[in-house]
């Protein structure tokens, strides 16, 4: 094997350019397959990333025990925030401000103009302490909302299915029977908050004629633990509260979306499988059309194994070129594209793992697709091959 004379590297490359139409079509097919794989993986990674970055390990969510895992259905007394702040020792405090944020969290129809149809949006009633706990949140432009004003997230337009120009600062959105002026825009590093609308809690309570709140987010100091908050909730039977670490809450949501993720990975396998057969078909065509050439190579002294390796080299070169092309297209056109889902919206993420899976699939397509035709080529008798038309 070590003394085996391989075909020159340039031979394989030159062969690809000898049949530009066939090579171009194969390249197009392989690029499409790898791009499809990248899109599906970017979808899975975007969904996972959105839920993973939404949780802060130092934040505990306190909400109604009857709401199960759905904060939207939760209603707890507004005094819960003050009670938690007064009763717990492990609450983070800075400059005399307790990191305890009461919030109202609702799904409601939002209209971007008087004639626009209402689209389902997520609205969070917030106070000045909310940014102390939602540390991923950064203002992009504008100011914190005053009375009658709202902040919109970077992906709110995707969630509402409207043009982002309709959510510029100074424009008005309508929900819960009143108009709200947009005072600013924020980003949240890919977290679920990015697709929400944030309004002052008191204004929302007035608009909804509600005295209660949906949840309280509690920030823990170094000495505090989720168990302390859990203990408080279980002792205060009258309040019917439950405490869940924010990370655990979003992990549970990830489990909820597990079938979607599994389906995504199955699609990746199916698409890759289809790609292997497409590559196989092309390479079989390439071998059948070159029987005389391959036999001539054998006649001039190249061993069958060398010819097979050269065929695999051709296919792998083509598939890796396709992988690079697909990765470039995915990075420039797919990465960051907003996708709407029940909890809000998230951006497709063509990250290192997506590129690895995409290029790995491309490599497998070329390698696996070339092996059977290469083996077929190895079986040809020289005399028969030379006579082939």
């Amino acid at each position, binding site marked *: 094997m070590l003394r085996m004379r391989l075909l020159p590297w340039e031979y394989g490359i030159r062969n690809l350019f000898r049949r530009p139409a066939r090579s171009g079509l194969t390249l197009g097919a392989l690029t499409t397959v790898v791009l499809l794989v990248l899109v599906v993986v970017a979808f899975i990674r975007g969904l996972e990333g959105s839920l993973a970055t939404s949780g802060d390990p130092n934040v505990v969510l306190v909400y109604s025990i009857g709401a199960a895992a759905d904060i939207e259905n939760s209603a707890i007394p507004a005094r819960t925030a003050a009670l938690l702040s007064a009763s717990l020792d492990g609450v983070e405090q800075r400059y005399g401000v307790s990191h305890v944020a009461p919030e109202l969290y609702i799904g409601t129809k939002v209209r971007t103009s008087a004639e626009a149809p209402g689209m389902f949006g997520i609205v969070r009633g917030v106070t000045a302490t909310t940014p102390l706990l939602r540390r991923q949140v950064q203002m992009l432009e504008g100011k914190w909302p005053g009375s009658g004003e709202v902040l919109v997230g970077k992906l709110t337009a995707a969630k509402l299915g409207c043009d982002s120009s309709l959510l510029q600062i100074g424009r008005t959105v309508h929900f819960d029977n009143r108009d709200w002026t947009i005072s600013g825009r924020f980003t949240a590093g890919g977290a679920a908050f990015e697709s929400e609308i944030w309004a002052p809690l008191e204004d929302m309570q007035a608009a909804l004629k509600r005295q209660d709140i949906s949840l309280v987010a509690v920030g823990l100091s170094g000495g505090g633990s989720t*168990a302390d908050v859990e*203990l408080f909730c279980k002792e205060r039977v009258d309040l019917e509260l439950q405490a869940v670490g924010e990370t655990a809450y979003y992990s549970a949501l990830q489990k909820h979306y597990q079938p979607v993720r599994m389906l995504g990975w199955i699609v990746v396998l199916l698409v890759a499988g289809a790609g*292997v057969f497409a590559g*196989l078909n092309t390479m079989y065509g390439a071998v059948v059309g070159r029987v005389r050439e391959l036999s001539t190579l054998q006649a001039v002294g190249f061993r069958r194994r060398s010819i097979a390796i050269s065929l695999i080299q051709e296919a792998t070169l083509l598939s890796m070129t396709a992988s690079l092309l697909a990765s470039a297209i995915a990075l420039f056109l797919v990465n960051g594209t907003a996708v709407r889902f029940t909890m809000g919206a998230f951006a497709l993420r063509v990250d290192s793992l997506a590129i690895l899976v995409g290029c790995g699939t491309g490599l497998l397509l070329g390698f696996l697709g070339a092996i059977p035709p290469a083996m077929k080529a190895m079986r040809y008798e020289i005399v028969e091959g030379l006579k082939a038309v």
Partner: protein
Amino acid sequence: MNELCKLVTVSSLATSLAMFAGCSTSAPPVASGPSAEGASYLLAAEPVTAKGVKDVRADAKDADDVTLIGRIGGDEKPWVEGQAAFVIVDSSLKPCNERPGDNCPSPWDYCCDADELPKSKVMIKIVDAAGKTVATDARKLLGLKELQTVVVRGKAKRDEAGNLTVLADGIFVRK
């Protein structure tokens, strides 16, 4: 072609295995018998004067010595992670698995008695000599599990809203 089919199958299986290998989750503490620390809280004999949870909730005043009997449950997760604290329910309530035809996956949450439940459950905290809750999960400390019947001896603690917590110094676990 046969070789190709084998290769595709093997690589698909390998990928699937790799995916599933990354899906393990951390399991909650499993009851494994009382620890050495927990053994000091276990009572050798069952106290004979135990009252039901409902009675204690109705009668006990703050700082009263109480002995009560109940079953561990009242919530899908009656435990407090990492703390020797749990919820018990009055024995008069039937867990879902003791009702014919009920296949509730977490019968200890007494979801069939949702209306009765708030006034039939009480929080138990195992406390040390200084009155602090022992910082070991009750399942590890005492080897407890859901729906076990326990007799708890301790002091009643009422808050301003009338909620009752029992600060326990001794517990008897019925076999």
